[in-house]
């Protein structure tokens, strides 16, 4: 009985943290629970969640992407420029997705075919993409986006468009991770790439697919990001990969690979979002906020590692008990 309770505590610990934080925030700040504030938090989180999904998929299979911020800026700016010259949202979307996917195909090429560590390959892309977008714009922001801003600022009825997009994307990603062979392959490759390959899983194909999915997410996030800022910002989204990584990791995605869930990642993103929001509401210094966020990442991982080693001991004991009975 006690064992079962602690098992569920363990399994849902991230959501318990989220709920406690939610209650805590609403007590600390009277503004927190106002619907306008909550809608605002969610709106702000949209870009971060999209990016976090990409990182989550990559981390589960043992890779990562450090080029998110730059690629997002490149895709977003080119998308904005396309919209300004054609007036077509479809064309803007196609350009955003295509640019981000192409950058990620290059990442995948180096990671899968040349066995360059993902850390290095995407670190290079971070420079390349940022360089390209600055070169293209000459470092100048593109202003007055007109109808483009709808994708970031508009609403359908009471629901903000980006929130709607997040719901759709979440369903797709959840489905991909849980209901496809590709999804199962991610966990297996992250857990042990050689074992996965020896079981007939094509890891190269999986790497390409993961970076393509990551690219699609970043392309979409790029449009929302620029729209929310009502500008094409070639210097924007610096370090955004860290936001994504933080959400994924706080949400229980294991950096050693093979572990991670969509629900955990959303929870992770909201934990960060609520924290930022309540600190803003309380007027906490922005620099101090950064200090706190940094600490949270390390603490979350430390907690995860410690609780996992405790859990494993317990399982062994259960096993020994069953063997005794047998």
């Amino acid at each position, binding site marked *: 009985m006690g064992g079962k309770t602690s098992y569920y505590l363990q399994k849902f610990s991230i959501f318990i943290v989220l709920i406690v934080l939610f209650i805590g925030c609403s007590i600390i700040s009277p503004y927190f629970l106002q619907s306008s504030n909550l809608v605002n938090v969610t709106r702000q989180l949209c870009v971060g969640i999209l990016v976090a999904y990409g990182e989550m998929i990559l981390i589960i299979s043992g890779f990562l992407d450090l080029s998110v911020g730059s690629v997002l800026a490149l895709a977003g700016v080119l998308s904005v420029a396309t919209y300004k010259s054609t007036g077509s949202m479809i064309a803007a979307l196609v350009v955003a997705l295509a640019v981000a996917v192409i950058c990620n195909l290059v990442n995948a090429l180096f990671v899968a075919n040349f066995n360059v560590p993902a850390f290095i390959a995407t670190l290079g892309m971070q420079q390349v993409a940022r360089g390209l977008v600055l070169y293209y714009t000459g470092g100048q922001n593109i202003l007055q986006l007109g109808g483009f801003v709808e994708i970031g600022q508009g609403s359908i009825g009471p629901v903000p468009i980006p929130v709607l997009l997040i719901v759709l994307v979440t369903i797709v990603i959840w489905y991909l991770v849980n209901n496809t062979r590709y999804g199962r392959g991610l966990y297996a490759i992250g857990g042990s790439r050689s074992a*996965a390959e*020896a079981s007939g899983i094509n890891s190269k194909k999986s790497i390409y697919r993961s970076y393509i999915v990551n690219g699609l997410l970043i392309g979409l996030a790029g449009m929302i990001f620029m729209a929310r800022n009502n500008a094409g910002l070639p210097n924007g989204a610096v370090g955004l990969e860290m936001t994504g990584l933080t959400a994924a990791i706080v949400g229980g995605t294991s950096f050693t690979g093979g572990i991670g869930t969509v629900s955990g990642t959303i929870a992770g993103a909201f934990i960060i979002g609520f924290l930022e929001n309540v600190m803003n509401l309380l007027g906490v210094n922005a620099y101090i906020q950064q200090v706190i966020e940094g600490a949270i990442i390390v603490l979350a991982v430390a907690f995860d590692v410690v609780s996992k080693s405790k859990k494993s001991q317990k399982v062994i004991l*259960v096993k020994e008990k069953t063997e005794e009975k047998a």
Partner: protein
Amino acid sequence: MGDVKMRISGVEKSFPGVKALSNIEFSVRKGTVHALCGENGAGKSTLMKIIMGLYKADKGQIYIDDQPVDIRNPIQAREYGISMIAQELNYVPELSVEENLFLGRLPVNRFGKIDWKKVRRETIRFLEEEKLPYEPTQKLKTLTVSDIQMLEIIKAVTNNAQIVIMDEPTSSITEREVKQLFAKIAELKAKGVAIVYISHKMDEVFQIADDITVLRDGTVVSTDRAQDLDLDTVIAKMVGRKLSNVYPKEEVPIGEKVIEVEDFSQDGLFEDVNFYARKGEIVGFAGLVGAGRTEVMRTVFGLDPHKTGTVKIHGKPVEIKSAGDGIKNRLVMLSESRRDDGIVPVRSIQENASLASLRQYIYGGYTHKAKEKKEVKEMFEKMNVKAPSMDTEISKLSGGNQQKVLLARWMLCDPEIMILDEPTRGIDVGAKYEIYKLITDIVKENKSVIMVSSELPELIGMCDRIYIMCQGRIAGCITKEEFSQETIMRYATGVADRA
């Protein structure tokens, strides 16, 4: 010889809810080899961890030279002259021989500077003494496994160890290297060192042990002089029941050829390899480590490329370039290395089992979870996998149970041909027997099994035909009437060659 070096007295250890060891009592004599036998989970490793100071015993006392000692960590254990050669060798592949040899105890002068001259001098002396043809500066990853093991032993002895614990020291070395190891052990014995020897290989235990203690379920079943015991008695004590027959081989009618491998070659690994397997047949592959058996099998299964040659299944040439291609052709392979190419450690036993047959459970855009769970569960029941639940992480199971999960993985693919590379490596006697039973059941279903093994008794006991490889070539193929360890070794060492 004869004086008690170490005495374990009334040692008990409980983990919350489970008693791992109760009232452990035995003595290890100076200048003798004391074998510790028991199935996985019998408490051997817990006991060794207590001796090494990694766990603290709840009760009981360890005496060394009749003095009660309190060992709190491995450094103290070293100070008491206890040294352990672990099953998984501990070394840093990227460091040199000398650096590894002196790891953690590099001599320093009074300014804290490492005395490399001394290190070099001592290393050269040790290498010469042991006749190991290596340079002190050579990286350890360039040495053979058995030589690395020899270095570990040297390391233990240079620590001036009085008690050396060896945990499965022969699990990854060849028979000839085993001889070298045994010679070394004899040398240590002559110097009066007490050796605690843990092994699943009964023939070895009987070769070198002076005393045998059998552990079962955390208690000492008995301690006897080795000469008063025989193999069957020890096994019966270990498992608590008599195994009717060590090799449950059954005669199965043998049908037509299912797989033919022709003219297989790969530069530097193997050449002109030809073999076949028939329905209902267990075909063995013997040979020394490095003879190319695993390399051939990996290539046949599509994990590695080959230069020339064809694989025919039911007489038709097939293209196998990846494990996926192999599985499509109903050819599967249980890897030699369970940890590297087998288990996915952080995932559940269910996911590990269904990994190679996902196509059967994920189709039509949907995961048929109930079907997956049901089929995996049935397979686990058939294989007698012992685990708390389907969600248990595979790395939490014993080696034997992990191996059964991996066998289940391949059985779920419904293969016609199964390549089993060292299927019983590192698992205990009881589980071995169960795996032999499973292999027998597999061929009774008219499938073919190709079994690569370094344990000759196992090949002789289970196979219908044995190919013997030597230096990348098939040196010979023998049928049942010719089976004997001597014949196989003659081919394996290149003395005889029929190919």
